[in-house]
């Protein structure tokens, strides 16, 4: 489904990696590893099409993601270092707005349910700026609960989460893979994801 | 050395904790635990004097930190969720500026040495905005390398660090404790700190 061929990444004057390639099928998890600054975030940004690679190509179902454009992005769900939530809005509003902007209507009940699952029950109506670091991250993660898109790209999703939340999220990713989804992920924490096929890719 | 008596914390309309107290002596580590939103960050901000407690008192060597003011702060080193680095400045400049503003002259050699220890050799002269998430955190941590103040207050210092850096930082904190320093810390990651006396405090 998702293939990368001969990717090269240059930031500033530094060549982070070159000749990188992989192939990911339905139900597989690609686990990116590497020390700080190895280029994991850069690679993820290439995969979602925001950073044009210096060289090489990325294909989705055989076609270059550059030519697929919108069509590819319709299959994509990205979670970055930043939470992409508005501090002034409440978790509920954030979730609804994010869905609407991604052109996916969800009902308020669904949203409330998602928030409850991420452990924010009782804080649905508190502006996000009052939430703790981990609670903010949970708001961002709530998007994943109802997410049906095929390809999830997650950049250190476990950061700031407490132990219970880490386990919950691992389960969520596992379920996504079981449904035949794909996932590309980085994390520095050792996490156990209940998934069949885990591919590892180490940048160095 | 550091005592808290009967602390109460109210945020918005929510009482996060009340009647909280502890006592920390030289060479001891206080390890704060609790789920996301339990009030760990709030407690730390009370300890450094930025958030006035609703009730109760914090004492340093027997005196209230409120009356000690500058004197207490001269013994304090805080590292928060944010890195407190300037994106335009290079790691070296950031480190030097931070030291100067804390009224602690350090030589350029010392600073370069600290940066090398945190694994930023070769990036001393790259503006911080180009660094990866983990590298930014390392710049913030470089301040600790030469830090001689007694009380370290660290809010999730391990976030975004790779495995090697986590181990290094744990060692650094251990060495600080061995020298007779105090440390109050939160983290969600299980980390092994080579220290004698670890006190745990669980907020819930």
């Amino acid at each position: 489904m998702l293939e990368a061929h001969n990717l090269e990444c240059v930031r500033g004057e530094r060549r982070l990696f070159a000749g990188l390639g992989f192939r990911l099928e339905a139900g597989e998890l690609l686990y990116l590893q590497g020390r700080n600054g190895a280029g994991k975030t850069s690679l993820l940004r290439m995969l979602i099409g925001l950073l044009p690679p210096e060289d090489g190509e990325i294909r989705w179902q055989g076609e270059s993601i550059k030519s697929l454009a919108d069509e590819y992005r319709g299959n994509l769900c990205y979670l970055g270092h930043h939470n992409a939530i508005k501090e002034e809005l409440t978790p509920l509003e954030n979730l609804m707005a994010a869905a609407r902007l991604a052109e996916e209507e969800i009902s308020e009940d669904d949203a409330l349910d998602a928030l409850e699952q991420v452990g924010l029950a009782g804080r649905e109506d508190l502006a996000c700026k009052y939430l703790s670091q981990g609670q903010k991250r949970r708001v961002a993660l709530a998007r994943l609960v109802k997410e049906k898109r095929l390809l999830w790209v997650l950049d250190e999703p476990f950061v700031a989460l407490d132990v219970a939340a880490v386990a919950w999220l691992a389960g969520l990713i596992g379920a996504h893979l079981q449904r035949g989804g794909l996932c590309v992920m980085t994390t520095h924490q050792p996490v156990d994801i209940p998934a069949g096929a885990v591919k590892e890719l180490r940048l160095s | 050395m550091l005592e808290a008596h009967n602390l109460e914390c109210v945020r918005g309309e929510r009482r996060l904790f009340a009647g909280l107290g502890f006592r920390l002596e030289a060479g001891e580590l206080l390890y704060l635990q609790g789920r996301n939103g339990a009030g760990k960050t709030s407690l730390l901000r009370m300890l450094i004097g930025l958030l006035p407690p609703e009730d109760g008192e914090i004492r340093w060597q027997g005196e209230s930190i409120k009356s000690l003011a500058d004197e207490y702060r001269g013994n304090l080193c805080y590292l928060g969720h944010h890195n407190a680095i300037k994106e335009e400045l290079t790691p070296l400049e950031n480190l030097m500026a931070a030291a100067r503003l804390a009224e602690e002259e350090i030589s350029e050699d010392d600073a370069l040495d600290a940066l090398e220890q945190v694994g930023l050799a070769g990036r001393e002269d790259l503006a911080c905005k180009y660094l990866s998430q983990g590298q930014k955190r390392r710049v913030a941590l470089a301040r600790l390398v030469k830090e001689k103040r007694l009380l370290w207050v660290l809010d999730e210092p391990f976030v975004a660090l790779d495995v090697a850096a986590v181990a290094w930082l744990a060692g650094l904190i251990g060495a600080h404790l061995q020298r007779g320093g105090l440390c109050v810390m939160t983290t969600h990651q299980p980390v092994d700190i080579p220290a004698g006396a670890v006190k745990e405090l669980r907020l819930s």
Partner: protein
Amino acid sequence: MNARFHLYHYASPATFYPLAGKLIPVFAALAVVFGLAGLYLGLLVAPTDFQQGEGYRIIFIHVPASWMSMFIYLVMAFWAAIGLAFNTRLSGMMATALAPTGALMAFLSLWTGALWGKPMWGAWWVWDARLTSELILLFLYIGFIALQSAIDDPRRADKAGGVLLLVGVVNVPVIYFSVKWWNTLHQGASVSLTQSPSMATTMLWGMLLMALCFWMYSIAVALMRVRTILLERERHTEWVKEMLAGETK
């Protein structure tokens, strides 16, 4: 890497760099020749203007500088369009290299115009359409330079600068006409440029030669600057390394 650029052979930096090196002396020499001839005609031979006395001789630099300032902006926009459309690296660098020269030309136009205005109109500055739009053009140049220098990544700087140039070039005529219209609506004929009537042929020739001199100068200077930019940007490529290694004088 190289195979990708064979289409744009001369746009390939490795070919362009030595080529530009050879062209610079030619344009510089032409600029000097035209300049000397123009100055000779303009300062020594041309007769006094019967209305403006000797003050009119400022025209020999004022007009070429004004022309160049406007023309260079167009050329920059042209390069920007090429760069955005075909993703050639050299085009962006050309625009970057031209900008300071264009800004200097705009400044010279303002400076000489002001020095001309004081004896002719009795004021260093009036808010006439042409003057005002030249001032705005200077702002546009400075905006471009400031934007590019605020971005550290050169490729990003090229693209962002390109978008700005294209937006600007659409606006320049709009600005010019709006200012002109504003000005003529407000007031009749209080101040307008005293056209030197029936310009003597020597004057015309002097001005043409000076204009050519400014042209050649601008080309030469832009090529010089683009060569330096090339070196900086391509310092990691083989050809720059070879060149630097070879140039151990």
